[in-house]
C-alpha cells in the first residue's frame, strides 16, 4: 500500500487508473448485457412448418411479429423466402442480439434441422427465394475471369476488389467475404440481407453468381496465397505506399533518433 501511494503522482498513474476503470466498466457490461439465449429445445421430427412456427414464436416473434407481419423493431418476413432465413440464421445474424446500425455475424445457435423448420415456416408465409442446392452454387468449373469482371462491376464498390469489405454510412459496413461459404454468398446475392441490394436471377443469372463465387474462392479463399504477405486490405499501391511512408520511414527516423540520443562517452551526463 505504501508502495502504491508513493507512486500515485507518477506521470503514468492517470493512464493506469484509466485503463483499470475501462476494464472494469467493460467487464461489468459483458456480465450484465442482455445476451439472447434463445436455445430452442430439441423436438421430435414432425411437420416442419409446425415445428418452425414454435421456434419462430420463441426466437423471432418479439421483433418480426407473431405472424411474421413485422413490427417497428423488425421488418416483415412475408415473401423473404427460405434462402433469407437460411442466410440470416445460419450465419448467426438472426436472432439479433441488440438493435443497432447493422446486425453482425456471430455464433449460430440453431442446428440444421431447426434452420430448415424455421425456413419452412417463413416460406409458408409468402413465396420467396428457396434455399439453393449444391449444383447452383458449387463454383466447380465456373469462369473465374468472368466472375472477376462481374464482381468488380456489381460488388467491389462496397466489398472491395478482393472481398475484404469496407465502411458504409452511419456505422454500417460491407462485411469481409473471407471464409463465407459459397451457399451463403449465393443466398446473400439472391436475397439482399440488411442494407445490401439484391441481385435476383432476372438481372444476374445463376451462372453469373457461380462465376462470382469462383472468383472469390480464387482471390480470397482459404488457400489463396498473398505473394508478398501483409496485403493491407488489398487496396493496392496507395495504401501500401502510405504504409511504407508512415511506418517504414517512421521506424527509420525512430532508429536514427535512438542512435543519436545515446552518448558513447565514458562519463554519462
Amino acid at each position, binding site marked *: 500500500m505504501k508502495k502504491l501511494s508513493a507512486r500515485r503522482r507518477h506521470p503514468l498513474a492517470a493512464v493506469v487508473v484509466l485503463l483499470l476503470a475501462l476494464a472494469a466498466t467493460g467487464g461489468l457490461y459483458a456480465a450484465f448485457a442482455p445476451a439472447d439465449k434463445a436455445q430452442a429445445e430439441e423436438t421430435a421430427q414432425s411437420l416442419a412448418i409446425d415445428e418452425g412456427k414454435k421456434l419462430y414464436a420463441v426466437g423471432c416473434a418479439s421483433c418480426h411479429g407473431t405472424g411474421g407481419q413485422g413490427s417497428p423493431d423488425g421488418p416483415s418476413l412475408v415473401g423473404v423466402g427460405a434462402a433469407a432465413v437460411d442466410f440470416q440464421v445460419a450465419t448467426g445474424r438472426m436472432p439479433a442480439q441488440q438493435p443497432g446500425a447493422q446486425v453482425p455475424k456471430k455464433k449460430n445457435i440453431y442446428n440444421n434441422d431447426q434452420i430448415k423448420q424455421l425456413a419452412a415456416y417463413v416460406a409458408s408465409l409468402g413465396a420467396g427465394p428457396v434455399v439453393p442446392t449444391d449444383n447452383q452454387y458449387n463454383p466447380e468449373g465456373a469462369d473465374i475471369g468472368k466472375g472477376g469482371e*462481374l464482381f468488380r*462491376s*456489381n460488388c467491389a*464498390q*462496397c466489398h472491395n476488389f478482393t472481398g475484404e469489405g*469496407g465502411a*458504409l*454510412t452511419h456505422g*454500417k459496413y*460491407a462485411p469481409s467475404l473471407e471464409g463465407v461459404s459459397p451457399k451463403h454468398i449465393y443466398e446473400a446475392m439472391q436475397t*439482399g440481407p*440488411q*442494407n*445490401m*441490394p*439484391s*441481385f*435476383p436471377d*432476372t*438481372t*444476374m*443469372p445463376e451462372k*453469373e453468381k457461380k462465376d462470382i463465387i469462383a472468383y472469390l474462392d480464387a482471390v480470397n479463399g482459404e*488457400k*489463396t*496465397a*498473398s*505473394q*508478398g*504477405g*501483409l496485403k493491407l486490405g488489398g487496396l493496392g499501391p496507395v495504401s501500401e505506399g502510405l504504409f511504407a511512408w508512415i511506418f517504414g520511414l517512421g521506424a527509420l527516423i525512430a532508429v536514427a533518433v535512438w*542512435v543519436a540520443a545515446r552518448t*558513447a*562517452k*565514458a*562519463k*554519462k551526463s
Partner: protein
Amino acid sequence: MSSQDIPEENLPSEQDAAGHTLVKGADDPFADPGMPPHEHRIQDIDEKAARRSERSVALLFTISMLATIGFIASYVAFPVDKIVYIWPIGHISALNFALGVTLGIALFCIGAGAVHWARTLMSDVEIADERHAISAEPEVKAKVMADFAAGAEESGFGRRKLIRNTMFGAMALVPLSGVILLRDLGPLPEDKLRHTRWSKGKMLVNMNTHEPLRPSDVSVGSLTFVMPEGMTEHDHDFQTEIAKAALMIVRIQPDDIKDKRELEWSHEGIVAYSKICTHVGCPISLYEQQTHHVLCPCHQSTFDLSDGARVIFGPAGHALPQLRIGVNEEGYLEALGDFEEPVGPAFWERG
C-alpha cells in the same frame, strides 16, 4: 559496458589541463566561450573495450556476409511458386519472404556496423573550422572584368549590329515551336460534357447479361447497372462514353418516393440515376437498399435516392441527375431522352 573500472590515472592528463582553459575576459560579456572540454569514450581509454567494439563491428559485417550468401542460396533453393504459412503474415511466397529477410539483414548489418564503428572507434575529437570571407581579391576582380571587356571587344558584338539583331530574333522565335505543340492539348470539349449516349427510345441494357431489361426483372431492393443499347465493351470509345452514360437502376415502393418529379420520371417505382458523383466524378454505387442512400467512396458524399438524389452529406454540390424512363411497345424499359443536365462534377461554363 557501463560497469567499467577505469583507473583514474589512465584518464588522459590533457583532459583536465585543456578542459578549463576558457578565456573569460571580465570586461567582455560576449567573449567567445571556446569549446567545451573534450570527454573521452571508454574505447579511447580502455584498450579491452576498444577490442570488444572492434569484434562487434566485425561480427555485424560477418552477419551481413552470411545473409548475402543466404540470399543467393534462397534464390537457388526456393521455387517461384512455393507457398508457405508464416505467422502472422499468412500464406506467402517462400522465395519473396526469404529474399526480403536476407537482403534486409545484409543491408541493416552493414549500416549498423558502420554506425557502431564510427561511434565507438573513429576519432570523435571536436574540430573547429574557421569561416573566411568569400569575396574575391580586388586584383582578381579587376582581371576578370578586363578579360570580359576584351572578349566583348574582340567578338564585335557591339559593332556588328546585323549579327546581334538577327541573333536576338532567332532566340526569340525558337520557343514558339514549344508553344505550338500545346495545340495538341485541344480541341476544346465544346458541348461534349452536356450530352451522353442516352436518347429517346434507347433501351436499357443490363451490363451483366447484355440483354434489355423488363420492368418485371427489377425487384424492390435490387441494384442493376445498365448501358444504352448499341454499345459494346469492345467499342474503341466505350470507356469515354460509359464514363458519362453509366446508369444505376433501383426500384423503390412508389409510396416511399418523396420527390414529385422523381416519381413522374420513374416507371412504377423503377428509378434511373447517373452513377457519376457530382463532386469530382467517382463512380458511385454503394447503395443501401433499406435507407435508399448512395454513398460515394471517395469523399463520403451521400445522396438520398428516395428524395430526388438530394445531397444529404458530404462535399457534392448538386443532386445526381435522373434519367427519365418508360416502357416501349415490346415491354422493355427505355430512356425518354438524354439527361436534362450535364452528368458528373460542375465545370466552369455549366451554369
